[in-house]
């Protein structure tokens, strides 16, 4: 047909415009790639929470006989682990993959030659990271429900919370990954941001146990705000601090991260 070199008679209509929602076409691209690897991923998304629940909740929890704030240690730690899992997935998916799309596979450059805007490219990839964080969190919730570690049906509200948390950490990480010149900076982000945040933002022990001077740092992390909300939801108790305040704080991180990411993506893609 094509080899007919212009003598073809079949008529087709090829639309050449922008897709109705361009970011969805970008998301579809990332999902198509994910189809090839999801099996290995889904296994670890169930295995990892099982291991952490068994290890921390049951193993460490056996030594924390009085629990925390009158709550069994397993029940207390599960919402924290849920939020920190979402953060880990969100950061892992927005460091090397974003860096690679600029530096190695150059996928973003291919996308920017199509009728997409910088915001479409960013939103589509961010949507994929959100999808990854939400599926991992859902798997986590299912496993912990099987262990009977969710005390309240309000636990379903943790999903919108971790979604917002994911955007709050992924958007600035996108900006960071677009700004750095070498991937060794990405490892620094894990060492100096992700690991301290996971250890001290109220996941494993209450922030009140930290020395006074360190507490503000813990409260400044997006993770602590999500942990407090998730803990309130799974235990069915009011959060320590205002829920609206938590949500606004997370939304501010997401919004600021978005603005930065758009700016830094544009600096790389439109030159």
């Amino acid at each position, binding site marked *: 047909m094509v080899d007919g070199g212009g003598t073809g008679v079949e008529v087709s209509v090829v639309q050449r415009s922008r897709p109705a929602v361009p970011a969805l076409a970008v998301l579809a691209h990332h999902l198509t790639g994910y189809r090839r690897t999801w099996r290995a991923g889904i296994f670890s998304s169930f295995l990892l929470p099982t291991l952490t629940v068994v290890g921390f909740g049951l193993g460490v929890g056996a030594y924390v006989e009085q629990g925390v704030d009158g709550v069994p240690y397993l029940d207390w730690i599960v919402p924290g682990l849920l939020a920190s899992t979402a953060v880990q997935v969100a950061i892992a998916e927005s460091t090397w993959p974003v860096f690679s799309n600029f530096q190695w*596979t150059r996928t973003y450059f291919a996308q920017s030659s199509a009728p997409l805007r910088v915001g479409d490219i960013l939103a589509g990839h961010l949507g994929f990271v959100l999808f990854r964080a939400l599926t991992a969190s859902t798997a986590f919730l299912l496993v912990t429900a099987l262990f009977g570690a969710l005390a309240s049906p309000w636990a379903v509200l943790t999903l919108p919370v971790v979604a917002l948390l994911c955007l709050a950490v992924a958007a600035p990480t996108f900006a960071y990954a677009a700004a750095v010149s070498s991937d060794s900076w990405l490892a620094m982000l894990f060492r100096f941001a992700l690991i301290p945040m996971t250890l001290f933002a109220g996941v494993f022990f209450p922030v009140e146990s930290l020395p006074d001077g360190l507490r503000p740092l813990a409260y400044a992390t997006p993770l602590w705000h999500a942990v407090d909300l998730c803990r309130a939801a799974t235990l069915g108790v009011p959060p320590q601090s205002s829920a609206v305040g938590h949500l606004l704080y997370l939304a501010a991180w997401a919004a600021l991260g978005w603005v930065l990411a758009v700016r830094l993506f544009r600096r790389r893609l439109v030159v």
Partner: protein
Amino acid sequence: MSKCLVVVGGHRYGRPVTSAAPLIRARGLVKRFGDFTAVDGIDVEVRPGEAFGFLGPNGAGKSSTMRMIGCISPPSGGELRILGMDPVRDGPAIRARLGVCPQLDNLDPELTVQENLTTYARYFGVPRSTARRRAAELLDFVQLTERADSRVEPLSGGMKRRLTIARALVNEPEIVLLDEPTTGLDPQARHLVWERLFRLKQQGVTLVLTTHYMDEAEQLCDRLVVMDGGRIVAEGSPRALIEQHSTREVLELRFAAESQEAFAGKLDGLGERVEVLPDRVLLYVTDGDAALAQVEARGLTPAAVLVRRSSLEDVFLHLTGRTLVD
């Protein structure tokens, strides 16, 4: 949205050509990066159905120009209209009608050959079923049908380049931009790419390419500009450029002695121009054989002699110099 035939980039058949208004029109186009001026006020017009080339050494400003035409790099000055639109304001609308084959392959290694085409087609709003059919046609066109379900990674350089060209055609573009389409390919792969590009041209697709291969430019381009230091130093068809900037033939003389310089002095008055290279002397002449007879009449006996037609490469080296540009 227009009706068109299922031929690669077959718009020309589906739409009457009402005027030969240029598809690309640049006036005093400038691109600056900080203090560095990559493109320094060029005027270019590309007409429908034409194969237009940008020639030049590395750093001449070819790729910067291509990126501005591809609407991913805003001009720093001058005027640029593509398909009658403003690339800064109407970028997505213009890009919807362009096909781009970049210098560095940016295929998605996580996807199969076919998926690289179908996912890209969605960026142009092509429905899924149309995209699949289109991908099959294009894989046939670039002779990759049997690799449709293969990953991209193990493909050879030539296959990847052909796939990138196929991807540039998923939206049936009116203009295809090719930045050094055969750089790094082996001769077989180059010839296959040329043959496919020639076929596209026959079908009426407007091709805009950059190259520093003179044979590529002579093979493909109807018209070209030679760029150097961000400026256009010559413009015309390959034939016209040779006529204008070189002689009909070149007589290459290689003398056995250490220095060719010693002999060069004895060639005064022969031909329009004498060029002394470390290993040989070039005489730019109208008739090579006649000039050779005169050389021999002066008692000179070169160790090796070659009479050849002037090529675009002679023009290129004459205009942009022999100094190495890195």
